């Protein structure tokens, strides 16, 4: 909605002194705390996974492996340059992408420690969203559906357009986030909540039996928990790439809280 012309104006229009508040301090703090906490959860989680892999298959004839992640190790040792000499291909994946194999007790202790920190940090984030009103920018609207299509079209054509040196304008943006960003950023607190819920379902399947049933049983809860790990990984990679592409102001706003990009009507790329 564009406002009425006759509405009274306030003090200053978009003067160069104005900045737009992007993130409440609690949101910024919890955002950055997620870096070490999620890293620790993923590394310790994969170490736990070594003891009893979530995704298994019938034993492979050549290696005897029943674990897809161990298979990756056999593949890497055979194909990744510099890894030919790795003594135990079965542990390769875990030795490179987790705290290590065969350290279940250590990994569990770390997983519990960081799980409680993760939950506390999630509460901090929700508090920041409530206090700063940031939740408003995350709630999707029905009208975002068309905007999502426009954004998908934009992303799909971006690389070809750049290669062909065609002008490829960003769809107009009137809000903090474009509809796809909104979905992405909303999916993270939801995924965090689901990771906590599936974690509790596996951790206390007797006392929290209703939660275990909600996810369709113990093994399904494990599977969802494991799936969410990869969802976090899948989010972080484009997230970092897009923030770098978006520039310094976007990164800085997650540290200082404000952005100098005060949108005007002609702005397409806020």
């Amino acid at each position, binding site marked *: 909605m564009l406002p009425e*012309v006759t*509405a*009274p104006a306030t*003090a200053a229009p978009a003067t160069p002194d104005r900045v737009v508040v992007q993130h409440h301090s609690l949101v910024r703090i919890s955002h*950055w705390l997620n870096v070490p906490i999620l890293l620790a959860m993923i590394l310790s989680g994969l170490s736990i996974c070594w003891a009893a892999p979530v995704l298994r298959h019938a034993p492979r004839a050549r290696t005897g492996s029943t674990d897809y992640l161990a298979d990756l190790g056999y593949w890497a040792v055979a194909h990744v340059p510099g890894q030919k000499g790795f003594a135990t291909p079965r542990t390769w994946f875990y030795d490179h992408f987790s705290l290590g194999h065969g350290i279940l007790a250590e990994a569990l202790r770390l997983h519990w420690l960081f799980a409680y920190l993760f939950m506390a940090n999630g509460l901090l984030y929700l508090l920041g969203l409530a206090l700063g*009103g940031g939740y408003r*920018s995350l709630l999707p609207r029905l009208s975002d559906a068309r905007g999502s299509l426009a954004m998908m079209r934009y992303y799909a054509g971006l690389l070809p357009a750049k290669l062909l040196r065609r002008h490829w304008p960003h769809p107009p943006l009137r809000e903090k986030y474009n509809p796809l960003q909104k979905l992405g950023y909303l999916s993270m607190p939801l995924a965090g909540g689901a990771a906590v819920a599936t974690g509790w379902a596996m951790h206390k399947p007797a006392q929290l039996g209703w939660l275990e049933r909600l996810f369709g049983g113990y093994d399904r809860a494990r599977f969802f928990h494991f799936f969410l790990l990869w969802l976090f990984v899948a989010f972080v990679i484009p997230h970092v790439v897009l923030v770098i592409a978006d520039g310094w102001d976007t990164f800085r706003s997650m540290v200082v809280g404000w952005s100098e990009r005060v949108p005007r009507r002609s702005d397409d790329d806020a």
Partner: protein
Amino acid sequence: MTTPEDPSVPAPPTGETAPDEVSAGAAATLDAAPRNPTTTEPEGSEPPPPDEPEAEIGADETAASPPARLPDGRRLVTLSPADRRRQSRRDFFLFGASAVAAAAAFYAVLPDTTRERILSEGEREFLDSLEARVGLGAKRRENILNRALTFDDDVAEALYSPRRLVRTYRRSDLTPVPNNYAGETPDSDYIPDWKLTVEGLAGGTPATLGIGDLLPRFRRRDQITRLCCVEGWSAIGWWGGFRFAEFLEAFPPEPGARWAKLESSVNLDSDGDPDPYFVSIDLATARHPQTLLATHQNGEPLSVEHGAPLRLLAPMKLGLKNIKAVTRIVYSAAEPPDYWNLQGYSKYDGL
């Protein structure tokens, strides 16, 4: 939709407008902002907002200017370039300092094996000496991580309800139950001479019982429940036996007893040498109606692989508490040691 194209639309003084109108007005001003904002002059009647040095994010906004919001609800604040630089410097300094602190804390809790794998000996020595200097040595790490375990155990104990039953399954849900003896499976030689010794009884004198003293005395119960291993796998098994609760009534513990230590003297390590296994069980869990002293699996007497002739089946505890081939039970007021807890695992293990 009318869009003001004329930047000269006068901006009346503010102060009496309702918040909604204020934000609409702010938006109008923004939307009406000319292509070249530098040509906009400050409003005639209002003095330009003072360059508040404290005009910080989250700071009270009444001082500098009325709240201005974008149509999406984001707040606009006035922050002079000098203040931006000052705030950025401060926040990035805090950010950097926190990042260093977080990295140090992260390193401090890394297991030794992980450090050995990713760092050279020289790097480790350097970092460990730094770590010791700020008081984050190995001892502190053990304390912090063990606190996390105890905290989690306390949460589990608080969640425990004697009335809550674990889910039971149908025969069609049964899965193979792996033999997860930590070491070698003992030879069946011990079975004919097997005796259960019970200590810490109210009467004072220990009791020594054969399987023939037990089976006729207690009602046989059968249940199909899930056994959850600390490693992450689980198995649904059909178990038969008698309730630990009824055994506790028949052989009551001394007053004040809150714990039972269950031992298996026949347990072996991976070299086949004797390695007695022992678990601690709180008597509240022992009295749970689904906690069995199991003697049967799938309707047959227990096999050696699964703890013949008598094992603990506590489905509201992790599998590692479900000790096989129990030979001794000791009641006590103080919490007894637990085999896996001594190796860094938690000790309450309530599911």
